[in-house]
């Protein structure tokens, strides 16, 4: 029998980026807020000290900062005719756990989506006609516009001290920035990072071909920064251990380095770690969430009542918890009905290796978001007429740090091991760079999340099942981007290049990107979305669901900037409207 605990005003489930943002906003509004985090406390000096943080084996290959599949995983398959099998080891994506979540080990690539990204269906229909969107492509407008989110993007960028160069200030195109971006109210809080040789070479080649290269917006600090909460971040030292690692330098924005030092001191905030929420409990009407059930490290069960519940876990957990709690109608792909699990999407990536003979590139000098990119082929920044796909992605060189277990690019024709391989690796390591393409994935009727009929987690609950594959739209788009990247690579006048296009079905094994989206999408119609435009559950109005689970499809950018902007947008609606008159906001 679960022990019942005293009620709180607001309960936050999951304590990563969105959990920290919501807790900060709701405590500012005067609420008593409790956050429940399944993992442990994590902090810079104890857990990512610069004396041992740069340990590639421990953190990347042995997954020390990630979710362990032994505790929780999901099953995967490419289509509904296959039997889903568990992701037994991490591979394609790396969900986080513990305080700070995946925001601990992100690269810091901090983007805004394009204004047209938020109007995916209406914009593409208007420009290319109804026939441009295949029948089984289930893309939707978001129900929120770029203009509405702009102040919230701005807020997050100033919280984090994003380093970059504006390309569009209040409608005026700025030299050196991204000319395709939506208008910004003001410049980035920090100047771009210093570029090493590889991104400089990429930018030079791209420029010579008429593209508009610009510095990747970065949550790695280009200089010391004090954010609006008074929290200080240090300058990035370009050590090359960002993605998959915690930053020992206080130089990468995370909940720990931007919000927690202030939030943790508030008298109306409390955190429980090692508290894993297993269910959101509804009242008899099924229209109100009354409490959550959680399990502590000893396996004891508790019931925690709350007036307002905000689901802030990673997208996969958000969707699974909704399914397990029977909140919202589960998506039925055969009938294309129901909402929870609908429109799961991912991203599609490819690369082109560039091997120089006469240039030493020192690729180990890096940072998660150190790079130059072009946006000419992202979203609807180019004419898609006759191309057979919609959407796009960015192309760039991002020097995240060539860590040696992970990075051994060798020219085409080199054997996979032995003396020849060793020789090729020794010769090319310092002389090689890679161009990356980072492409959108549209939502599709055949791609969805539901509960697995067979496999169970450590508590005996069904695992979530992911059914996903790339469609023709994604392959055509990615091939297009890869060709464009290869042309830029050629213009770099290197010894040789090697293109690595993304072929075949989605594969759970090689790491691609931790940019899973959808499953509890936002929208304006309760028949096709799980949450309204304020991220409020249509079915249970005192429940809000944050995160990339709200994305109706996945644009060609890294998601964190938009995840955070949506969190601030939702928090404002809660503060200014919901708390005054609790009930449906839309």
């Amino acid at each position, binding site marked *: 029998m679960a*022990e019942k605990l*005293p009620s709180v005003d607001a309960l936050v489930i999951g304590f990563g980026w969105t959990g920290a943002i919501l807790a900060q906003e709701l405590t500012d509004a005067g609420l008593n807020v409790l956050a429940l985090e399944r993992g*442990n406390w994590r*902090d810079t*000096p104890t857990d990512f000290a*610069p004396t*041992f943080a*740069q*340990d*590639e*084996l421990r953190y990347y290959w*042995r997954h020390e900062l990630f979710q*362990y*599949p*032994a505790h929780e995983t999901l099953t*995967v398959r*490419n289509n509904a005719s*296959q*039997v889903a*099998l568990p992701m*037994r*080891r991490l*591979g394609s994506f790396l969900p986080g756990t513990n305080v700070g979540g995946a925001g601990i080990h992100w690269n810091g690539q901090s983007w805004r989506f394009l204004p047209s990204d938020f109007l995916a269906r209406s914009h593409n229909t208007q420009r290319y006609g109804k026939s441009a969107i295949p029948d089984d492509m289930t893309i939707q407008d978001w129900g929120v516009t770029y203009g509405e989110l702009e102040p919230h993007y701005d807020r997050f960028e100033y919280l984090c001290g994003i380093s970059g160069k504006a390309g569009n200030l209040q409608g005026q195109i700025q030299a050196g920035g991204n000319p395709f971006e939506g208008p910004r109210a003001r410049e980035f809080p920090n100047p771009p990072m210093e*570029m*090493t*040789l590889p991104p400089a070479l990429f930018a030079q080649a791209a420029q010579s071909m008429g593209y508009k290269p610009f510095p990747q917006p970065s949550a790695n600090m280009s200089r010391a920064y004090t954010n609006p909460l008074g*929290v*200080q971040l240090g*300058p990035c*030292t*370009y050590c090359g251990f960002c993605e998959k690692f915690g930053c020992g330098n206080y130089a990468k924005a995370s909940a720990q380095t931007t919000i927690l*030092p202030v939030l*943790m*001191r508030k*008298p109306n905030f*409390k955190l*429980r*770690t*090692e*508290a894993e929420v297993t269910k959101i409990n509804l009242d008899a009407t099924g229209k109100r969430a009354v409490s959550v059930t959680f399990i*502590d*490290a*000893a396996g*004891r069960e*508790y019931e925690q009542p709350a007036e307002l519940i905000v689901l802030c876990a990673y997208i996969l957990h958000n969707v699974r918890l909704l399914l397990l709690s029977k909140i919202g109608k589960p998506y039925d792909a055969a009938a294309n009905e129901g909402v929870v699990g609908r429109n799961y999407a991912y991203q599609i990536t490819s690369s082109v290796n560039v091997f120089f003979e006469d*240039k*030493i590139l020192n690729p180990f*000098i890096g940072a998660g978001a150190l790079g130059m990119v072009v946006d000419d082929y992202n979203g609807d920044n180019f004419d898609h007429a006759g191309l057979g796909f919609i959407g796009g992605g960015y192309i760039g060189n991002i020097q995240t740090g060539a*860590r*040696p*277990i992970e990075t*051994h690019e060798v020219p085409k024709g080199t054997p996979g*091991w*032995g003396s020849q391989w*060793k020789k090729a690796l*020794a010769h090319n*390591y310092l002389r090689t760079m890679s161009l990356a393409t980072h492409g959108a994935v549209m939502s599709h009727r055949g791609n969805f999340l539901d509960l697995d009929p*067979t496999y169970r987690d450590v508590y005996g609950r069904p695992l979530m099942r992911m059914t996903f594959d790339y469609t023709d739209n994604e392959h055509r788009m990615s091939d297009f981007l890869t060709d464009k990247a290869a042309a830029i690579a050629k213009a770099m006048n290197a010894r040789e290049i090697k293109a690595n296009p993304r072929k075949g079905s*989605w594969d759970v*094994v090689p790491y691609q990107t931790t940019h899973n989206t959808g499953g509890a999408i936002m929208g304006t119609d309760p028949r096709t979305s799980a949450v309204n435009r304020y991220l409020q559950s249509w079915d249970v109005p005192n429940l809000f669901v944050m995160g990339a689970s709200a994305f109706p499809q996945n644009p060609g950018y890294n998601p964190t900037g938009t995840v955070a902007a949506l969190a601030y947008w939702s928090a404002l609606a809660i503060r200014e409207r919901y708390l005054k008159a609790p009930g449906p906001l839309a």
Partner: protein
Amino acid sequence: MKPSDNPPQPRVTRRRLLTAGAVIPIAGAAAARIVQPGEMPWTEGAADVPPPAVQPAGYTWLTPAEAAFVEAAVSRLIPADELGPGAKEAGVPVFIDRQLAGEYGRGSRWYMQGPWGEGEKTQGWQTRMTPAALYRAGIREVDEAVGKEGRAAAFAKLSADDQDRWLHQLEDGKVKLPTADAKTFFELLQQNTIEGFFSDPLYGGNRDMAGWKLIGFPGARYDHTSFVKKHGEKYPLPPVAILGRPDWNPPGGSHG
């Protein structure tokens, strides 16, 4: 920023409860770690440090026959040559031994519940064998198959060319072993060899930072700021590991 300049405040932790001599139920205090208002749960001296450095002598998990196999195989994957030490000289067999002896070898972070199915290639690792079990079965079964072929009693006793031929057959999945999946075994062996050659020397491989020296990786350095704008210049500093460099630790000194 420093997490908190406040003086430490009393708080309920499991340790405090236990050391108090009696465990008294406190209203609302779950076994979950509760961080009270105003508190930062930061403990001096409680850093989540790496494991102690592997001592290189001997094997702890591999049997002599298994060790002979691993030494021979990793010597073909990354051979010693005019460029420098190979995987064996760099301690990769010791690295693999210690990894298999520990948490990694038991697959304790992986989902290892049934039912078991083979599935599609895109569904990834589905074998019931832990890494340690796969090495144990794979080595035994490859040695048996080599014995049946008749050129040598075991893989380690084959000529280098024959060893390469066998490794290629494993890699291409052309060998059918009784229980181990040949391709999966090869891929694990190759991945662990690369890990052992290029990971921090703390884990027993990459001895004298041989892997890092081979390619020019400067190791566990934490500040490249001054070198960011030196485009095209060769990085001048030697590699450094988490425990430092041999020349930082004078013989008989207390450092390290």
